[in-house]
């Protein structure tokens, strides 16, 4: 995977970052709000620090009729984006900051499921003065 370009941000400002996600064909992951408490939701989280992720926006899920649940199950499949809105602390000095995050997911196809996984993410942010 190529190293991502740093995201420009101003100290004291806000910034939005879109994280594209691509699933292997035939597989899906649960949405961020699955209808069954036992299903593992897709969850993007960022470590707290000079950046505060005050909102994560998930796309509109696809409703998939699956044999194990009476109503269609909201899932994500194919390629989609997860958007995070950050508030940048005014006290952050200019320069490059690597923001750690995690993407928790659990993938299935129509016949089998794979164990839940947590991907470690690093978001490079280039901070400039206000």
């Amino acid at each position: 995977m190529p190293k991502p370009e740093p995201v420009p941000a101003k100290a004291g400002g806000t910034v939005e970052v879109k994280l594209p996600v691509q699933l292997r064909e035939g597989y899906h992951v649960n949405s961020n709000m699955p209808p069954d408490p036992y299903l593992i939701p897709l969850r993007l989280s960022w470590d707290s620090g000079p950046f505060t992720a005050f909102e994560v926006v998930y796309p509109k899920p696809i409703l998939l009729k699956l044999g194990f649940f009476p109503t269609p199950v909201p899932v994500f499949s194919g390629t989609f984006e997860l958007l995070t809105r950050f508030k940048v602390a005014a006290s952050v000095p200019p320069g490059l900051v690597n923001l750690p995050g995690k993407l928790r997911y659990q993938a299935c196809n129509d016949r089998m499921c794979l164990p839940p996984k947590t991907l470690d993410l690093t978001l490079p942010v280039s901070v400039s003065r206000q």
Partner: protein
Amino acid sequence: MLAQKLSPRSIRRWTLFAAAVAILASCESPIPDGFHLKSANERKATPDFSLKDSTGALIKLSDFKGKVVLLNFWATWCGPCKIEIPWFTEFQKTYKDRDFAVIGVSMDEDGWDTVKPYVEQHKMNYRVVVGNDQVSQLFGGVDSLPTTLIIDREGRIASMHIGLVAKNTYQKEIEKLLEIPKDAPKTGAVPAPGSEFAFVRPN
């Protein structure tokens, strides 16, 4: 919400193209389907393990020798596994008096905190244990769920199914193995002509 207090101009939009996260399924196994018991001379001994059930009682797989066993690796978060649970509950009820047992090995990371209420909620009438990586590795690394083994009376793997298969497939395999009496004389590893088993049935 903070976003609503900000003027549109103050929000900078960036797309992190290069950081595309590819969620790739790490294991894609062929999905066996249909009735396909291995012949007796092709069957390998099932690895043994000991795990505790929800009451703390130790379940040792080799203690089930003499029975036909359906060993099911599953998890509470696995939708296809949920489809199979009523089938296995039915098999346990139907065949329990014919030297048959279902054993469920949950691969839930949270262990009994999650598994115990699920077992009660789904009225699972068979033995359930919580598995671990060590047990998974004994079976070549159980990565895809459900993974189900049908084990013969001699403790050998007669079939292995990765992923959801038809209820009928399990049923036929179980019934075929149950046809062989517990005390049937063995003839070694040579299958009888036209038979898929290494046993000669008594006349």
